[in-house]
């Protein structure tokens, strides 16, 4: 079946090449049949790549180690769910996922535009198939997921233990969906610029794809932060890692795009901005894809260096150069149809919003690529860390949060001072009240940023709440709906507006969580013996007893051995909860004869966090059961001596299976010894307020995005249009 997979990829490449030719020829010559054949190439690409995906997934699930990618990233001891997700842990598998998702979204986009935008669609189709051709070329000629080794190895290397987390099932597909969704507006933007038809039509058609990209990228980013918090043992959720930043940059630009396209749709303004933003966002999405796999920057996501650096750089260069050429050469048709009526208007707020978001993206870009920039300029690679990023992003984020409260409260075109006083009275009062309340809890001199952010968040919540209240009251005044029905009807009739407002609330809540948890966190890293305790903020954490297990991994990640601890947490003498941190030990890639016991646990060790979450605070614990460092005099830890002893007792005359069985018994004895005579363990203990608000904020953002993206019922759309048509017709009659 691997041969069928390889043939499928070659066929996919051929279909892309044909489709590009057919679409371009049909577009240039006005031949609808050729254009349709080009569009059908996209459908065929989706079908072929679906077959390729299924073949590869079956190989993973069936543990077919004749496939190199299966042997390198999976094993018989990897749980089934993680075997299914292991496909996208490899470079070749993730590239296949990328191009498969692209083909699916491209099929949807070309289907819904099959009778629309007939001059733009041939070029958009060509661009989409161009991306398809690029990725299938990589898969066919550089890094095939169907490469095999015969005879097949008996066992695979297993999925990296760091990736054995439920988030592995959803985080990469979410991020890749975000990256690939944005190729749709990119392709249509290129088509619109090529044919010089830059009105709002192509934006209307592709807006939902841009919103879907923003939504999936955002959820992917939040999921990644949550995974980092639960998995990596450092207690944080955002470290300004290059790969984190690589997803953040297109998200920031797409946020700017989603706001400013409203202005183009309504007023025919900011066309150059919008064209530049959509082209930049998609280019940054490719940069993000490249960073995840390339190893060009040090990152927790650097699971292996890539051989595909040059092709990706060439693609990024082509997209950048092509985008600049198109925007510059089409600047005459990109001229705004109107100018700004007033600096005190929603248009002006959106424009400022754009500037701030682009500024944020620039800061993140500069900090991310600074190692490469400094190496190119000075010959020495220098990196910037979280303090540098925080110094510039926090003030910009504060302005952004403020703008998200100002925008909803002012009108399009122009807002009068009298109305501004009326509309900002409540949000300003809320901000002042929150500032006063915050100052009673935190010292303003050292936490001015937190006070300001809390105040800005209160401003946003009050402003958006006011909008909901007034809209609901207006709806009730003009209909006989019950209160709940009126609210639902109000949102349903203007999903984009109210969905956006919900997103603003979510962002405010998320930033409250970030500000509180990062500023008021208490952390301790220390060594504790059983019975000893320590204070972490207002909490006392006591090491009660050691725990351990062999094979029966309580975290269901396939760890061979798990060692952990039970910690009792109290506050003011009252019981608060129990934390159970542990460390999972995984087998080495190969079992070494004579060192069977050691091989079973000498692979990666991964922290499993002990966590108790509530809306008020998180209690977080990580453990290194065998101490943070080896003894200073070079002697072995007791556990190492036990392992060596155990290996020494296993007779080399036993069969491999018998040696393995004996090794597990010995390992059980070692774990029992650890539980009975636990050594001092190294703990990282954290008490952090309002962390849960980050995830709640992310969920609210998701719900808001879903509300905005949901299509209005077509009947309602028709009724609304008919009503306005009738009104305008009345005017025509009187004119």
């Amino acid at each position: 079946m691997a041969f069928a997979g390889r043939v499928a990829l070659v066929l996919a490449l051929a279909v892309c090449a044909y489709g590009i030719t057919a679409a371009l020829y049909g577009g240039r010559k006005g031949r609808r049949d050729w254009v349709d054949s080009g569009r059908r190439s996209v459908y065929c690409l989706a079908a072929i790549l679906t077959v390729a995906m299924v073949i590869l997934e079956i190989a993973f699930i069936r543990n077919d180690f004749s496939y190199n990618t299966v042997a390198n990233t999976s094993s018989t001891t990897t749980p089934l769910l993680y075997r299914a997700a292991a496909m996208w842990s490899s470079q070749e598998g993730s590239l296949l996922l990328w191009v498969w998702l692209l083909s699916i979204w491209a099929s949807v986009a070309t289907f819904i535009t099959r009778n629309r935008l007939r001059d733009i669609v041939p070029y958009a189709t060509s661009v989409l198939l161009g991306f398809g051709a690029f990725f299938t070329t990589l898969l066919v000629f550089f890094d095939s997921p169907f490469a095999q080794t015969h005879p097949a190895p008996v066992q695979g290397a297993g999925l990296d233990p760091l990736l054995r987390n439920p988030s592995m099932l959803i985080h990469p597909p979410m991020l890749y969906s975000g990256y690939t969704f944005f190729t749709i507006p990119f392709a249509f933007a290129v088509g619109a610029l090529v044919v010089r038809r830059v009105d709002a039509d192509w934006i209307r058609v592709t807006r939902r794809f841009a919103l879907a990209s923003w939504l999936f990228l955002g959820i992917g980013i939040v999921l990644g932060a949550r995974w980092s918090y639960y998995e990596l043992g450092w207690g944080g959720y955002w470290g300004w890692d290059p790969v984190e930043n690589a997803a953040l940059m297109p998200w920031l630009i797409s946020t700017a795009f989603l706001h400013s396209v409203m202005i183009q749709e309504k007023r025919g303004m900011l066309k150059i901005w919008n064209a530049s933003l959509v082209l930049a966002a998609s280019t940054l999405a490719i940069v993000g894809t490249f960073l995840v796999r390339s190893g060009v920057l040090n990152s927790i996501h650097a699971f292996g260096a890539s051989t595909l650096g040059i092709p990706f750089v060439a693609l990024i260069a082509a997209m950048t150069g092509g985008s600049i050429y198109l925007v510059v050469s089409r600047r005459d048709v990109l001229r705004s149809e109107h100018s700004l009526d007033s600096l005190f208007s929603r248009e002006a707020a959106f424009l400022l919003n754009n500037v701030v978001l682009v500024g944020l993206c620039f800061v993140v870009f500069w900090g991310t690529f600074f190692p490469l920039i400094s190496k190119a300029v000075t010959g020495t690679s220098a990196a910037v860390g979280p303090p540098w990023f925080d110094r510039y992003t926090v003030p910009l984020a504060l302005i952004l949060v403020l703008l998200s409260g100002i925008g909803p409260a002012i009108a399009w075109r122009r807002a009068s001072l009298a109305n501004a006083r009326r509309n900002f009275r409540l949000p300003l009062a809320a901000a002042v009240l929150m500032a006063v309340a915050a100052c009673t809890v935190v010292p303003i001199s050292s936490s001015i940023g937190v006070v300001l952010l809390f105040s800005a968040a209160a401003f946003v919540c009050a402003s958006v709440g006011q909008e909901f209240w007034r809209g609901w009251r207006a709806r009730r005044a003009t209909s006989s709906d019950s209160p709940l029905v009126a609210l639902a009807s109000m949102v349903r009739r203007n999903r984009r507006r109210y969905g956006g407002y919900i997103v603003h609330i979510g962002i405010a809540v998320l930033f409250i969580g970030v500000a509180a948890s990062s500023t008021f966190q208490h952390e301790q890293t220390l060594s504790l013996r059983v019975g000893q305790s320590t204070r972490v903020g207002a909490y006392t954490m006591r090491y009660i007893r050691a725990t351990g297990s062999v094979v029966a991994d309580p975290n269901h990640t396939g760890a061979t051995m798990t060692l952990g601890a039970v910690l009792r947490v109290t506050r003011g003498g009252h019981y608060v909860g129990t934390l159970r941190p542990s460390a999972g030990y995984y087998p080495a890639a190969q079992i070494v004869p004579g060192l069977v016991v050691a091989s079973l646990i000498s692979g990666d060790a991964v922290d499993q966090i002990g966590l108790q979450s509530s809306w008020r605070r998180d209690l977080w614990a990580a453990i290194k059961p065998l101490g943070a460092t080896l003894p200073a005099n070079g002697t072995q830890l007791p556990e190492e001596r036990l392992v060596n002893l155990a290996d020494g007792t296993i007779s080399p005359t036993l069969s491999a299976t018998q040696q393995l069985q004996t090794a597990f018994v010995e390992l059980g004895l070692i774990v029992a010894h650890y539980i009975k005579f636990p050594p001092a363990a190294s703990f990282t203990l954290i008490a952090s307020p309002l962390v849960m608000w980050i995830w709640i904020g992310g969920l609210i953002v998701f719900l808001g995005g879903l509300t905005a993206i949901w299509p209005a019922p077509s009947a309602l759309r028709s009724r609304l249009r008919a009503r306005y048509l009738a009104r305008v017709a009345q005017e025509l009659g009187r004119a």
Partner: protein
Amino acid sequence: MTALIAALLIGALLGFVLWALSAPFRARGSATQPGDSDARRALESAKQSKYSEIRDNETDYRTGKLSDEDYRALDRQLRAEAVEILRAIDELDASIPAASD
């Protein structure tokens, strides 16, 4: 057995691709694409934008962001602009049969 399944799968894929890509040619022959009027499309797009502006203006008024005076002035202006767009569409539609005569 696996080889047979693989061969059948490849054959099915090839057959599907050839059928799908050739369907437009079998259905229409060498159909040319009717030339759409760029001007008509631009006016339709402008009409949609204008309706959206009228709707938003009304929502802004109902939620207290505009005074009575500002709302009425802007509503008059926007609907006058919509009227002009509709007139332009009508004129364009009326001119098409004249051009083909």
